[in-house]
Structure formats: C-alpha cells, structure tokens
C-alpha cells in the first residue's frame, strides 16, 4: 500500500485504553495503522468491580473473545439487570431487567394491555412478573437466553467482572496482536504551530514519541483533550450532585445474585456487584450532603461479608468535555466525561466511543483531521451523554424521598426539558418515545418509571381491540409461560461454576 501507516497513540492503560487498543488491533489493518499505548505503572487506574450492559457482549464478539475464558480470567458473573432498593421509598424495590415486560399484542405495547386489565378490574399479576429476567433475578437463577424464544421470554445478559483484570486480559490480548506498549508518563505535549494538532509526546524518561492521531484515555486528568487542547468541561453537578465514592471489596456471600444491586442512601447510593471470588461494594455520595467519614461508615455498615481491603476514595464530577474529539485527539472514557455508574454505563460509553471513532477514523491517504468526521463523532457523543444523563436524573426525581437534602436538592432543580417532556407523556398515557439512536431503550424507561412508583393516568385506547375476557386469558397464559421459563433456570452460582469457574473450564452449559 502506497501510504505510510497512520500512527495511533493511546495515552492511558485502564479499561478505556486497553479496550481501545484491542478494538483497533482487531479491526485496523496493520499496514495502514500502527498502534502504541503509553501507560504508567505509577498511575493507578480507577478499576473496581464493574457492572456492564449487554452491549459489552457485542464488543467481546467483535474481538472474537472466548466467553468462558474471559469470564474465568476476570472473575466474571452473569448479570440480568439491576435491582434498585429503597429508591422510591425505604422498603420498596424493583428490578430494571435486560429484557422486556410481556409482549406486543396487535402492535400495542404490553404496558397498555396491563394497565387496561388493571383499570377494568381483571387484577393482573404485578408487571414485573411478566418479565422473565426479573423472575430469574428473584430466584438468583440464570440461563443463557435462547434466541429462538418469543419476545415474552427473551432477555439479554451482561457481566459483572473485575475491571482491573479485564484491562489486564485485554492488555495481553492486544500485545499478542501487535500493539506496542510503552511504560512511561507523559510530561509534555507538543502542538503543531499552524494547525494546532498534537505532533508528539515527551515522556518522563525523555523519550519523544511522534504520532498522527491521539486517543486520550488518561482518565479524569484528560491530559491531552482537556489540559492541552482546552476542550471545555461542561458541568452537570447541578443535575447529578454525587461527587465521591468509597469502594471496598468484601468476601463473597451466599446471596450470589445475577444482578447488580443499588441501594438508595440519604446522600447517595450503595452498589453491590457479585464477582466469583468476592463482592464489590461502593458508596456513591454527594460530599456537600454527607462527610467522607460518615459515608465510609455507612458503606462498611452495610457489607454482607468481611471487608478484604481498606476502602478506597474516588473523586469525580458529573459532566463531560464539550468537544470529545478535537483536532487529532479523541477522548475515550473518563477523559471525555463522567456519569455516575448508577446504570452501569461507564464501559458502554467507552465502547460506543471506540466504535464510533473506528468508523470515523482518518484514513492514511488523507492523514490529517477531517472535521466532517470529528463533528459527526461529537454529535453522536452528545446525544448519547444527554440521553443517559436524563435517564440517571429520572432515578433521583421520580420518588417520594422527601425531606432528605440530596433528594430534595435534585428535585428542586429544573429538569432538562427533554426529561420533563418524557415524564409528562408517561404520566398522561404510559407512553415512552422511541429513539433509533442512543440509550436507554423504551423497555428500560418503562422499568424505572413503573419501578419508582409512577402511574399513568390512562392507558392507550388502541389496546381496546381485545375483548376483556380474551385479554384476561392471554395474560394468564403469558404469566404462566414466563413463570415456567424462569422457574426452570438453574442457580446462577451453579452456572458460573460449571461454565467458567476456576477449576473447571467446562463449556457444556453453552453447548446444551
């Protein structure tokens, strides 16, 4: 090929850096793109127990990663959703599943049929009992979804794993495929006097590294995109005031859940992520409403196993870089923005950024930055961040937790117009707008809206075409089929042990 390869330099070796390196190594042609990743053993990564979304499976599929091996090496478990405890009101709980509730009948969404049944006195079972994933969660059960199953019993799944081990796993994977790793710390960034493009990095060792394209995966420090190129920070702490987290692992408990748990607290929330060898815990909190010491004590007081390390304090701010791709530099992960991990979006944002970047990457023939492409990346990135932001705020405003400073504070702040509109539409008729792009899906919105106690004033009259007696019968049949499907699933703990437990590399489960 006529052109010399385009040199991509990735700065930072956490999940963002190594996910990016791995995807580049898999997709890009080595004669057209050269890859270098700079990381420093002196700089810790945020890496804690990580809960993911089903989209991560697409990422692993892209890399043709063997699932059982990956799960074994990262201490992974399966995840069918997130259980939210005490969010609406202390004692209440619901699951946001990776899957739908019921099924469409006559092109009309299930919630309308269910609402109609309730309105007309058919006393249908609770909505969550029409979700196969929720019922599996209630039993701590798991089974691989069968793609041939009808929508009513279909669900997706994701993983819980150790993010540090995932980065390590991808590091090995990437280096075996030609990614060059340089140990070092970036101390200087040189810009082209005319274009303002980054031309080279100088490391602490004095080594100078030239590059054509730079990925800033340096975390919150954002040393290229933020520090050097000055992409401004757009602050969202008025919407999402949590700015700290204590993280601590504890011994694995008997409660081996196929879901993440999120427990609301007076000044934030606590996560619980089951891994094979331990349980990851953390308390996300707003420092203006609770002291660090008190938050630490709250976390340690709620562990369901003995802590096996000292709690680690993480600091962050909700928001994002107004321009995620500037000149010849794109920010991936925390370098481009942060949203609290309430809906497990951290790795998803990384993954989406990488996939969009790969599609829109400069070509060796043209070399330089093409603003038509970077603008499109930024448009996609903006939409994704804003939709996820709205979904997170929803959790904080749709509840009855009055009288607690954090919750009152968030509710008192004017909502983004996009969210206020969605809430009105749902309140009016249980309708959730559909979007082709971006997250979260309609099913996810419904799970949280209903889960946090909101109730529409009416159902959609399009549902009226089914005679009531027939609706009653259909609901009963569906309810029984979902119950049977979920009831036949084996225990999550057993599936993990058989499929990817440390001793047995058995794959029979996947085969059957």
């Amino acid at each position, binding site marked *: 090929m006529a052109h010399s390869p385009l040199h991509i330099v990735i700065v930072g070796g956490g999940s963002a850096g190594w996910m990016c390196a791995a995807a580049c190594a898999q997709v890009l*042609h080595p004669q057209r793109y050269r890859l270098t990743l700079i990381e420093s053993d002196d700089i810790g990564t945020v890496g804690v127990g990580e809960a993911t979304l089903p989209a991560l499976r697409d990422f692993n599929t892209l890399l043709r990663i063997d699932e059982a091996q990956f799960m074994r090496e990262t201490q992974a478990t399966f995840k069918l959703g997130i259980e939210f405890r005490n969010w609406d009101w202390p004692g209440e709980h619901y699951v946001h599943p990776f899957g739908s509730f019921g099924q469409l009948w006559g092109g009309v969404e299930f919630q309308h049929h269910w609402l109609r049944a309730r309105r007309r006195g058919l006393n249908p079972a609770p909505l969550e009992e029409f979700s196969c994933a929720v019922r599996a969660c209630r039993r701590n059960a798991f089974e691989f979804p069968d793609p041939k199953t009808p929508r009513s019993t279909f669900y997706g799944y994701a993983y819980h794993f150790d993010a540090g081990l995932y980065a390590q796993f991808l590091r090995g994977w990437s280096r075996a495929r030609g990614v060059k790793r340089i140990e070092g710390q970036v101390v200087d960034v040189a810009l082209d006097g005319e274009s303002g493009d980054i031309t080279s990095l100088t490391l602490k060792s004095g080594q100078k590294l030239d590059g054509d394209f730079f990925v800033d995966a340096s975390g919150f420090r954002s040393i290229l995109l933020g520090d050097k190129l000055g992409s401004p920070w757009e602050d969202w702490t008025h919407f999402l005031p949590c700015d700290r987290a204590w993280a601590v692992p504890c011994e694995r408990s008997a409660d081996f859940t196929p879901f993440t748990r999120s427990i609301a607290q007076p000044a934030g929330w606590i996560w619980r992520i089951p891994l094979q060898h331990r349980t990851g815990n953390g308390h996300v909190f707003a420092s203006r409403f609770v002291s660090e010491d008190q938050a630490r004590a709250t976390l340690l007081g709620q562990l369901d196993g003995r802590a096996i390390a000292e709690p680690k304090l993480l600091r962050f701010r909700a928001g994002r870089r107004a321009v995620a791709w500037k000149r010849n530099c794109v920010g991936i992960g925390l370098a481009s923005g942060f949203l609290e991990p309430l809906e497990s979006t951290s790795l998803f944002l990384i993954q989406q950024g990488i996939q969009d970047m790969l599609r829109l*990457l400069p*070509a060796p023939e043209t070399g330089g930055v093409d603003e038509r492409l970077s*603008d*499109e990346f930024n448009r996609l990135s903006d939409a994704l961040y804003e939709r996820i932001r709205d979904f997170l705020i929803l959790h904080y405003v749709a509840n009855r937790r009055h009288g607690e400073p954090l919750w009152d504070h968030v509710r008192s702040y004017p909502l983004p117009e996009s969210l206020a509109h969605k809430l009105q539409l749902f309140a009016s008729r249980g*309708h959730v707008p559909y979007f082709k792009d971006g997250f979260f899906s309609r099913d996810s919105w419904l799970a949280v809206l209903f889960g946090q106690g909101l109730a529409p004033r009416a*159902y959609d009259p*399009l549902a009226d075409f089914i005679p009531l007696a027939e609706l009653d019968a259909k609901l009963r049949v569906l309810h029984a089929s979902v119950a049977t499907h979920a009831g036949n699933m084996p225990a999550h703990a057993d599936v993990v042990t058989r499929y990817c437990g440390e001793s047995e590399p058995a794959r029979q489960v996947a085969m059957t």
Partner: protein
Amino acid sequence: MNNAASDLAIQNLVIVGRDAPVWLAACVMQSALGPAGLHVTVVELPGVMGPADTYATLPALEPLHARLRIDESRLMAATCGAFTLGKHFHDTTGRTAAFFHAYGSTGARIDNTEFLPNWIKARHYGLQVAFEDFSLTAAAARHGRMLVPDAEIERHGFTDYGYHLPAFPYGAWLKQLALRRGVSMHETQALGVLMKADTLDIAGVELDGGRRVMGDFFIDATGDGAALLAGKLGVQRESWRGSFPADRVLVAHAPPIPSLPVYADVRAGETGWLAVHPNQACTHVIHAFSSETSEHSAVVNAERLARLALSGTEIRVRDPGRRVFAWERNCVAIGEAACVFDPIHGADLQAVQLGLVHLLPLFPVDADYAAERNEYNKNLQAAFERIRDFQSAHYVLNRYDGAFWERARLTPVSRDLLRKIGVFRARGDVVHYEDESFSIDDWRALLLGHGVMPETWDPAVDRTPPDLLKEELRRILGFIRRKVEEQRSHAQYLQGARSPLQM
C-alpha cells in the same frame, strides 16, 4: 365483561377533507380506535384529483395497507395501478450520468462487513462496475421483472416495492372500505367552522344547507389551504419555496406502455423534470417546472420529454412549505394541510401516513393532551424536514444542464443535510437521523447517483483480502443475473396478483 369504553375522552372524531387522504385517515382511525368506541365521521369536500393524477408511493404504504387488511390484488385490479421497484433518473441528452434509486439494498455483506465501504475501496483500486449494478432490485426493474423475494434473496439483502396508484379510483376504493367499516359520511360543497364559546377549540363544522356536524376532535385533510388548522385556528406556514426551483406542476395521462415497466422514469429537461408513471390502464405523467416558463411552453416541454401523446392536461400551483404546528387545539392537520412537498420522490401520501401513524399512539385519552400535542408536533416537524432534506439533496446536488437546474444548485441547504452530504463525501457513511422516511439505502442511491463519491472508506473493510473481495463482487453479480432470470414480468405478476388463487 364488556368492552366499555365510556371513559374515552374523545368520542366523536370528525375528519374533514377530500380525495384519498380523507378516506385513508378515516380507514386508519376507524380500524384502530373504533374498538375503543370512537365514532368517526367524514365530511367530504369536492375532490380535486382527476384522471391525470396518480400517487407514486413509497414502500411504507404497503405495511399500512396490510394493517388495514387491504387485499393488494383486489386493490391493484380495482385501481388499475402498478407496482414500482424504484425510480430511474436521467437527462434526455445523456450528458449527465443516469442512476437508479431502487427500493432495496445494494450488494451483500462481504467478509461480515457492509457492502458500500467494500465497493468504495474496490473502486479506489480500479473497479469499474457502478454501485447500482450490484442492486438486485434495480436489475430486476431494468429487465421489466417484478422481484419476489425467496429465502435466497432474503439472505442476500433487502428488497421492497411501492405502487403507482391512480388517485381517483384509489380514493373511491378507500371510501367504499371506510363506509363498509362503519364510518359515517356527509358530503358538502361549502364549509364553515364553528368554535366553542368558552375555549378556543373547534366545536363543529357547518355544511351547505345549514347542516352541522359537531365533534370533540378534528382532522383537517382539506389540502394545502388547511381550512380548519390555518383557516380557523390561524396556524402559520413556514415556506420552503426558496429551497425548491419548481412552483408549477403539470399532470396528464397517456396510453399505457406495452410491456409495462416496473419503475418510474424521471427525466431532467432544461426547464424542469418529468416523471412517467406506468399504470395498467394508462400512463401518468407529471412535469414540475418554474412559473418563469409559460404554461404553453410547459405543455410543449412535457410532450417532448414524455415522448407520448398527452391528454387531460392540468396545471396547478405547487408551493412547498410546512405548517409550524400540525396539531393545534383539538385539530390535527394531515397531508398537504400540514405539509406540502415538492413533487419529486412522491412524498404526498407519505405525509398523510406519517400524520396518522404518529397520531395513533398519541390520540387524546383525556382533556389534557398538551404533552401528546408537543410530542406530535416535534415528531412531525422532524419527519417532514427529513423528507424535505432528501428532496432538497436531489436539487442541490444535481449536475443537469439548464437554468432551472443551475438555480436548483444554489438553493439553501439545511445544516442537517449539509452534515449528511459532508460525512458521506468524507467517509461514505450515511448520517441517519431520527424520524427518517428514507432509508440508508435510499440515501446511498441518491447521494452516489448525484456523484457524491466518498473520499475514504470505513477501515473495518481493510482486512478483507483483495482476492476474497474480487471473488465476492463477482459472486454477487452472478447471483443478480441468475435471480433476475427467475422473476416474472410485471404484467405476468399483475395477472397473478389478480387471480383469486393469490388471495
């Protein structure tokens, strides 16, 4: 247990309008909300559609018909309509490259990657075969064959079709259907609108002879004048006149074309364009031009471009633009009452369909429907602007000769379209927004057809070995040749569609 729907806030829906749009609206509303207890009444105004008018529809109409349980073969027999696999765009001089906009995908996935970037890359390394030559749908159309997907074709890619539906018989057919399904009807020459005393809502309409039809909610399908939405509620109009070079439309009909083509032929002339829509009983012709050309010259130009003896010629003003709100108070405007499109790409029925399909899940459930109205107006604005952009692209990107086309190249371009063209030129990627009526395949056909050649390609295809790429390209061309041979001619297909065995 009964289906009591007594708590439906809107019990009486009145649809005011004419021709196919009013009856399509009646069929859709009646079949979707009749079971909930909605009473649908149509107030029919005198039609303006005549024997020279035809709807060249987009593929989206077929699923709507299916939802209404319309039997396609009967519809085609009753209207003497025809199928269409796409549009062939060319100029009569042959100076500008012709292209085919087929209703289907082009090529097939290669080495688990998209076809287009592979084609761009192959072209970069010397491939001479045009993009559309890899379209099975276009190939079938060129050979006069209707394309009926089998399992092999479905694995290969996606294919679809639209209709040419003669407007007058189509409207009459929908009217019969609506009446059979229980819609009430009043005919009138004159129309007055009555307001509620206490609110700014519409209370009813007054017909000739002093008859009154009262309602809770109204659909305005009266055409571009929007008698209710604009005439009474005063909703303003946003003109798109500046974006489109044509402000006059000539329609006419001609004898049927032997060996019935299965596509529309769109010909650029120096003073506008002309589309030939083949139908079973006759050929429908539409000619768009600027009022700078005299009507007399337009008729001459149309006959020259059509190369057919035209009759029933009518000329009408066309003034593209959008009502700033399609839903105001208790009235929703659909079709031309909400948005008038340029006639290229046949979006008229699509505008009606969009209005109805978006209305169904937002139809008021109680007296407070501000959220629904906001959502509807937002969605419809986006959907209409996306269609406008598709049409606008056809004009600004054109490479045809003549003052009409020169002026078209200088019309303003929306930011969204500018981005779309820019990203496609840079990478071959289609920026596909929310609420697009035209698919990614449509955009590819349009942009490549007008010569927007991507400068680079998605690097995901770089790893495919050149030999495999060549072999796959050859295989796809072979597949297309073989599959086209297997298809029946358009006329044979229509015969089959008409036979009772197909029902």
